[in-house]
């Protein structure tokens, strides 16, 4: 069993500046990738930048486990005058997730981009991908609310065009990207308006300072309006039901690199910010907040879990099915958060990590199968296990994790959530979780049945096994799904550290 405190992975001078190096390295890599002379060089820059960021994230996880919080003040001006990064257990966990997903997606993209996107665009695609990564990493590190808005937009603006690039394979990527842009911008602007109300009430933008000042102000309409707008804005970005309309199109038609990375990270980063605001910035005893969690957050999350699982069952296209599944799983995470207990938070964070892993596996596997043939509908991938056994095996692992089969990380995470719900006395949440899991079994079953047990349609082109460059990251992630299913101690430490940070005083 590896204790997190042991992660002392970087020399002291780098660890001192790790918070900003975490964000700057993908940013500088993005500039370098845009300047790169060839697609291959830009790919290598992308992988290197992502690996460096992941290294910094590991160092930060260790630091956060040792000291509780890592603070980094910019420009020599302490907040609230200046901006500071404030990385605690939760932020470090998110940073590790984002940078780790970035490394895997970057390695995977070496081959997938060659097939899916025109060669001359690759340098810009890698640059956009790295900018998205930098934005998300900044979002989870910052302690300043407006800085969070800026990084949110950094990550989003590159992504809109990157989703639209998928149009060379399916032109529906274009309206999907446009829709994503509209909804994403409305969400960000709602967040800005809400922040304006909070600024009007407190006079500061630093989240810790704001929390201190809001402790006495929770009855004012201005603060409540601020809360409402911030939650709705971030809810759109996090694809919270019923604001999730943009997600299925954006995930389904984007190139593999983008759907893999976004499925693992983008909505979860917005969820992170929402959880920060609900549980850290706003005072815990506020009656409107309790009411919101009990009467709005939990019911909407439950509806998401059940309704979107049902929608996934009836979906004919595989990637759209996975996208609806993502919305449903976000409902799971929100249900865990709405318990507002330490066990609930821990379960929700564990589920967040588990879901990132298994969705990455699924999207990577589908992408691998798609490299050599059409893959859109379930009929297209029927019988593909015969021709591409390795990819199909990884797909099976991911699907089993999603369904919550024992020995996979999905099982462990679901178990913890249900346990936390029962402990917290919210039996109805446990019931909803169980029903939704059974529904998950249905659509996962459809995928497995199509891939393994149905014969290939007559006249369909034979699929080829994916090359090693694609299989390697796929197997690493699939392997992690199984390893963490057996020994989840590392994940549990991360999740518990995150839960402690969320429960503790700001």
């Amino acid at each position, binding site marked *: 069993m590896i204790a997190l405190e042991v992660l002392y992975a970087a020399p002291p001078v780098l660890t001192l500046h790790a918070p900003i190096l975490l964000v700057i390295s993908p940013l500088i890599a993005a500039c370098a990738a845009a300047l790169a002379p060839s697609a291959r060089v830009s790919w290598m820059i992308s992988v290197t930048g992502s690996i460096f960021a992941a290294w910094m994230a590991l160092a930060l996880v260790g630091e956060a486990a040792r000291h509780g919080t890592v603070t980094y003040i910019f420009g020599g001006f302490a907040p609230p005058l200046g901006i500071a990064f404030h990385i605690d257990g939760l932020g470090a966990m998110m940073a590790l997730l984002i940078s780790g997903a970035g490394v895997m997606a970057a390695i995977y993209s070496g081959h997938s981009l060659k097939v899916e996107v025109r060669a001359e665009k690759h340098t810009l695609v890698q640059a956009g991908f790295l900018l998205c990564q930098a934005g998300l990493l900044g979002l989870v590190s910052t302690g300043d609310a*407006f800085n969070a808005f*800026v990084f949110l937009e950094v990550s989003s603006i590159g992504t809109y065009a990157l989703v639209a690039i998928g*149009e060379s394979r399916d032109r529906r990527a274009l309206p999907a*990207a*446009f829709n994503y842009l*509209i909804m994403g*911008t409305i969400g960000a*602007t709602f967040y800005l308006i809400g922040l*304006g109300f909070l600024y009007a009430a407190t006079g500061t933008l630093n989240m810790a300072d704001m929390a201190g000042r809001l402790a006495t102000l929770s009855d004012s309409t201005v603060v409540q309006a601020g809360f409402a707008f911030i939650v709705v804005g971030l809810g759109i970005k996090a694809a919270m039901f019923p604001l999730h309309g943009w997600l299925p199109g954006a995930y389904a038609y984007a190139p593999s690199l983008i759907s893999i990375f976004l499925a693992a990270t983008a909505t979860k980063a917005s969820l992170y910010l929402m959880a920060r605001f609900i549980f850290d910035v706003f005072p815990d005893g506020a009656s409107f907040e309790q009411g919101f969690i009990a009467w709005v957050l939990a019911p909407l999350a439950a509806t998401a879990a059940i309704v979107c699982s049902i929608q996934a069952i009836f979906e004919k296209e595989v990637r759209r099915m996975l996208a609806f599944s993502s919305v449903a799983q976000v409902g799971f995470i929100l249900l865990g958060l709405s318990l507002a207990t330490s066990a609930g938070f821990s379960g929700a964070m564990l589920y967040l990590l588990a879901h990132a892993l298994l969705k990455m596996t699924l999207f990577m596997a589908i992408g691998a199968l798609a490299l050599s043939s059409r893959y*859109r509908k379930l009929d297209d991938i029927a019988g593909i296990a015969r021709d591409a056994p390795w990819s199909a095996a990884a797909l099976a692992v991911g699907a089993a994790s999603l369904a919550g089969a024992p020995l996979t990380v999905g099982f462990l995470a679901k178990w913890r959530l249900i346990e936390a719900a029962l402990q917290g006395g919210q039996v109805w949440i446990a019931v909803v979780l169980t029903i939704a899991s059974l529904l998950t079994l249905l659509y996962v079953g459809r995928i497995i049945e199509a891939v393994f047990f149905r014969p290939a349609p007559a006249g369909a082109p034979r699929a080829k096994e994916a090359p090693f460059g694609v299989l390697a990251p796929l197997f690493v992630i699939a392997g992690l799904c199984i390893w963490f299913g057996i020994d989840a101690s590392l994940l549990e430490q991360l999740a518990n550290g995150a839960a402690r940070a969320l429960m503790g005083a700001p």
Partner: protein
Amino acid sequence: MNFLATHFNYIVVVILLMAGLFLVFSSGNLIKRMIGLAMFQTSAGLFYISLGKVSGGTAAIAVERGSAEAQALAAQVDPAYAAQRGFEGVIYSNPLPHALILTAIVVGVATLAVGLAIAVRIREAFGSVETSDIEVLSRVEATQPGPQA
């Protein structure tokens, strides 16, 4: 009525916000929706600037103490007002919202440019920028790849 006078800015900002949002949701033309989105974003900026305004204030550019400009600005402020609010000399408006909205305006134009670029590509791929046409075409030929570009 007093509320109307003291909070006029905020009421107008809210109406402008909703006008922009209405355009985004109700218009069927992609370009018009982008214009609505741009209106929505800039109106959020107007909100912040209204928060930062100080009565009798001037732009947040420091004037030299004791210069003619400083004296002229100080002379414009009623001594009774200055005494009530506890200021001396020149009154400045709050610079923080200005810096924030400068950023927000630039983010807005960035979004506009990307959105319009996608709209142009939609026109090339679907032949129209009306959402009704695009929906019909998406359903009819669901798997047609876009133009090679």
